[in-house]
């Protein structure tokens, strides 16, 4: 239905373009602080790069990114900026998308799927969880505890077939784990104690901060290779064993301290597609505080300029130009004339892109890895009794496939309990990052063998490649004003290779920084971020940088 209603005003305090998680958090907090916010998204759906899409929406999205963007027009950017390829250095790009055709059954059920463009799990301690609680947006979204993390090992009993091993999620589970010798348990405990503590000042770490983590584990803690692999991939969530020790330890500490806050696993899973749903929650919060929302083509700016007073934006849904004191957007939603920012002073001018291969599959058969064994019971006895029915199988899992000399393949499974697929079905996400020099790798050829280890009966498969600017590796740049204007706040989308475990908190931090960029860090204003977080911060995690 055409809805030619115009906006209520020609001027807003802040215009936010894009409804990604960072944008939505910033918008909600600004509205809470009393700012008049206009929030636009040229997409028909919420969530931007973090969107959760229905299956048909996903297929459409995939079709629109089949081919690599040509040099002159970055496909994800709404602007045909003639001759300017400079945008592409800071935008997220997708290419080589493919998807199997939808069966009639999938077609019928298409709206019951929530496929995430940003599959991720949320550490129970960190920026996003704090922001959810402070903003009360936690009331709109529901989370569950991740059921298991497992590590694949190529050496199995049967030739050519590997084995999966659940990684114990807590101290109790480590003690119970019979596959770890007592001596190794002691070493492991010693390391975990170290990694939970204030290791920055510990002599054990001195001089070894940038040593590869695996080397540090073996040299400083005498941890044997098999155990070391579990720590590197499944506890520290590194992509390779060579990651510098200090950064890996910091993440490990956060994950370890996350255990027990809500359950026996460090991570939470957002229902209904995760990140996209969370973004919608913040948008609703913004609307509740008076923010105005326009989505779709009528919200796609035809022109954005910075002026001496702020910014001026032309959008189809309003007959006159709309002005605002500030603009917040990620580079994907800005013309290069406005978005180009100075490279952060410290970082080298040659930005390295992270290229990630992605896969999404749906199956109606429960992957074996989710099946809970009847613990300790003699399997022969279980036959007649109903014990097997009492065992609740897992609904969600993260499975890590180490690869020699290459980045780990991460697999993330969502069952019906996540609300993102019909009952009895599972969504399987796969991803791995590759060096930008290997850009010709096919995502399906690379990832399909790993999907086959999880299930042989996928009823849908989709693959794509994303390229992210490496802005966000630990020391990277955060939301900042552009060189041209102190009215335009440009967000830095997550650009690391640990999207699965780090992406959400990065986006939350971006949102918070964008808020502070506009409101200052002064006293007493009333967004979410000035709020005292009483006991939540007692564990001392909230302070990270």
């Amino acid at each position, binding site marked *: *239905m055409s*809805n030619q*209603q115009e906006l209520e005003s020609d001027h807003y305090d802040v215009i936010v373009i894009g409804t990604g998680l960072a944008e939505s958090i910033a918008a909600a907090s600004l509205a809470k602080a009393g700012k008049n916010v206009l929030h636009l998204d040229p997409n028909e759906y*919420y969530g931007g790069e973090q969107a959760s899409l229905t299956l048909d929406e996903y297929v459409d999205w995939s079709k629109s990114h089949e081919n690599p963007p040509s040099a002159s027009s970055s496909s994800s950017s709404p602007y045909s900026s003639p001759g300017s390829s400079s945008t592409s250095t800071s935008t997220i790009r997708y290419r080589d998308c493919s998807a199997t055709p939808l069966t009639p059954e999938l077609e019928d059920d298409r*709206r019951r799927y929530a496929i995430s463009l940003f599959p991720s799990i949320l550490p129970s301690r960190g920026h996003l*969880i704090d922001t*959810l*609680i402070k903003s*009360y947006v*936690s*009331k*709109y*979204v*529901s*989370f*569950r*505890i991740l*059921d298991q993390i497992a590590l694949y090992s190529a050496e199995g009993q049967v030739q050519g077939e590997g084995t999966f091993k659940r990684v114990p*999620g807590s101290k109790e*589970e480590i003690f*119970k784990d019979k596959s770890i010798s007592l001596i190794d348990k002691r070493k492991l405990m010693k390391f975990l104690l170290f990694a939970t503590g204030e290791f920055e000042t510990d002599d054990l770490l001195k001089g070894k901060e940038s040593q590869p983590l695996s080397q540090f584990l073996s040299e400083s803690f005498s941890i044997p290779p098999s155990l070391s692999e579990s720590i590197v991939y499944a506890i520290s969530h590194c992509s390779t064993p060579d990651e510098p020790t200090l950064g890996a330890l910091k993440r490990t500490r956060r994950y370890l301290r996350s255990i*027990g*806050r*809500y*359950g*026996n696993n460090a991570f*939470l899973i957002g*229902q*209904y597609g995760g990140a996209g*749903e969370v973004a*919608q929650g913040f*948008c*609703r*919060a913004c*609307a*509740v*505080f*008076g923010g*105005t*929302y*326009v*989505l*779709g083509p*009528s*919200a796609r700016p035809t022109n954005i300029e910075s002026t001496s007073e702020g910014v001026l934006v032309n959008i189809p*849904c309003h007959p006159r130009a709309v002005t605002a004191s500030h603009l917040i957007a990620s580079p994907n939603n800005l013309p290069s004339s406005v978005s180009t920012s100075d490279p952060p002073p410290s970082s080298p001018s040659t930005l390295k892109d992270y290229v990630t291969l992605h896969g999404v599959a749906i199956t109606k058969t*429960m992957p074996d890895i*989710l099946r809970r064994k009847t*613990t300790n019971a003699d399997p022969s006895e279980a036959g007649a009794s109903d014990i097997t*029915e009492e065992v*609740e*199988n897992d*609904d969600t899992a993260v499975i890590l496939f180490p690869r020699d000399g290459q980045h780990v393949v991460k697999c993330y499974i969502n*069952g*019906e*309990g*996540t*609300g993102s697929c019909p*009952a*009895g079905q599972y969504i399987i996400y796969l991803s791995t990052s590759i060096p930008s020099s290997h850009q010709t790798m096919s995502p399906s050829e690379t990832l399909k063998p790993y999907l086959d280890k999880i299930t042989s009966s996928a009823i849908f498969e989709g693959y794509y490649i994303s390229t992210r600017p490496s802005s966000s590796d630990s020391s990277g740049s955060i939301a900042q004003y552009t060189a041209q204007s102190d009215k335009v706040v440009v967000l830095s989308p997550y650009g690391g290779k640990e999207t699965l475990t780090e992406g959400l908190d990065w986006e939350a931090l971006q949102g918070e920084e964008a808020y502070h960029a506009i409101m200052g860090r002064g006293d007493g204003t009333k967004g979410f971020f000035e709020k005292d977080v009483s006991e939540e911060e007692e564990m001392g995690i909230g302070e990270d940088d």
Partner: protein
Amino acid sequence: MSEEIPVKAVQVKLVLLGEAAVGKSSLVLRFCQGDFNENTSPTIGAAFLTQKCRLENRIVKFEIWDTAGQERFHSLAPMYYRNAQAAVVVYDVTKSASLEKAKAWVKELQRQANANIVIALVGNKVDLVSSSTASPAEVAKPKVAENEGGADAEENEDQEDDASPSPSPSAAEEASDDVRQVPTAEAEAYAKESGLLFFEASAKTGHNVGEIFTEIAKTIPFDTISPKPTTAQSGNRRSANTNENNNVNLGENQQAKKGGCC
């Protein structure tokens, strides 16, 4: 008596829909607070309101979601419809276009929401039309068995005055039939053929407001939505909507509250 029987409240998410300025928020304010403000500004500030509705055999706790203005440019998020068990679609009896909008919202609900959602179509502002033709809402007689009131006590007092089927006392004399643009019969016929509950009401006087919610509460098929989680063929019982126990309440530290593992 029935009060002796301890009943636990069943929570129901109810979403409001309808064109701007038809009085969605006013209806809810009347229901929840027994209140009416002549000039309410477009909805700002409340995430959702809650109100209990007591039936003979159960207490229904409505969690009422307002559109927060996100309907204006058709940008209501899918989250809004998610798990809603009831919807109130409001139009203004003095604006025929608003009924057309309401029909569009009903379609949208049928597309986006749960299949078994209970939808009530409500013609608001009957206080503006003369009482003779407003014979309307007799459809939903206030025979309703709200021993404890459709809502909390103070609201009940308002209701006693206003909810009676007698002509609304405050209906302005000068308001004539001309003001009414949507005949009761027309909207009622549409509601009937689409399987919707139907009411004409006035948020201003409170006429029929409590009845809307009571009737919804009575119509929701509780027996099919809450009980035993349905077992999926896989033997996996973690259904998203039915098994709330697996959900984490972020607001509180719950130390490994759920069993299940090990």
